[in-house]
C-alpha cells in the first residue's frame, strides 16, 4: 500500500541514482559537461538533481573495451521515469560513456556517498 500512497503524495516522481563511467582519455572538464547535460535534461522535464559527485579517475576492476581506468561520476535525481529513459538514451549514444547504471532508490540524501566518505577518513573495519 505504501507504493500507492507514495504515488498519490508525490505523483509519479521517484528518486534515482545514476552512476556512469567515462573513457579515461576524456578530460574531467568534459565529464562535467556530461553531468551538466544530464542536469539540463532533468530540469527540462520538471525533475531536479539533488546531488552530484565526481569520484575521479579510478582503476577499473577489469578492462572495459580496452581501457583500464575510467572517470566515475554519480548523480542523485528526483524525476519521473520518462526523464530516466531520456537520460539513458543520451548515455547510450554518447561514445565517451563506457558504462552506466540507474537505480531507483527509496530515500535520497545529500551526504557524500560511501566512495568519498571512506577516502576522507580511514575508517578501520
Amino acid at each position, binding site marked *: 500500500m505504501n507504493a500507492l500512497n507514495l504515488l498519490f503524495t508525490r505523483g509519479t516522481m521517484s528518486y534515482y541514482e545514476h552512476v556512469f*563511467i567515462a573513457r579515461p582519455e576524456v578530460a574531467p572538464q568534459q565529464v562535467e559537461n556530461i553531468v551538466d547535460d544530464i542536469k539540463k535534461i532533468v530540469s527540462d522535464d520538471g525533475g531536479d538533481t539533488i546531488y552530484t559527485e565526481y569520484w575521479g579517475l579510478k582503476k577499473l576492476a577489469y578492462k*572495459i573495451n580496452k581501457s583500464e581506468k*575510467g572517470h566515475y561520476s554519480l548523480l542523485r535525481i528526483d524525476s519521473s521515469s520518462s526523464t530516466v529513459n531520456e537520460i539513458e538514451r543520451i548515455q547510450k549514444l554518447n561514445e565517451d560513456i563506457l558504462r552506466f547504471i540507474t537505480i531507483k532508490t527509496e530515500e535520497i540524501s545529500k551526504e557524500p556517498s560511501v566512495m568519498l566518505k571512506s577516502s576522507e577518513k580511514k575508517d578501520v573495519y
Partner: protein
Amino acid sequence: MKNFLPDITQIPIRSPFLKRKKSCPLSGENAPKIDYKDTKLLKKYLSERGKIIPSRVTSVSSKKQRELAQAVKRARFMALLPYKMD
C-alpha cells in the same frame, strides 16, 4: 568439599563449523547499510577468488544475503568489483 569443577562429561561439544545462534552481522539497528558502492564491506563477503560466500558460512540472514548478492552483482557490473580474481 563441594565439587566446583563442572562435570566435564556434561559440557556439550561445540562443533567448530556450526555457527550456532550467531546473529546476522548485517541486520540489526546499527548494522552497516548494504550498498553496491561500498566495496570495502562487500569484499568481506567475497572469497579470495571473488565469489560470493554462501550464507551458511557467513551466517547472514537470507533477506540480507539477497540484498548482498544484488549489490555485489551491481558492483561487478560497474567494474567496482572483479568478476574473478586469479
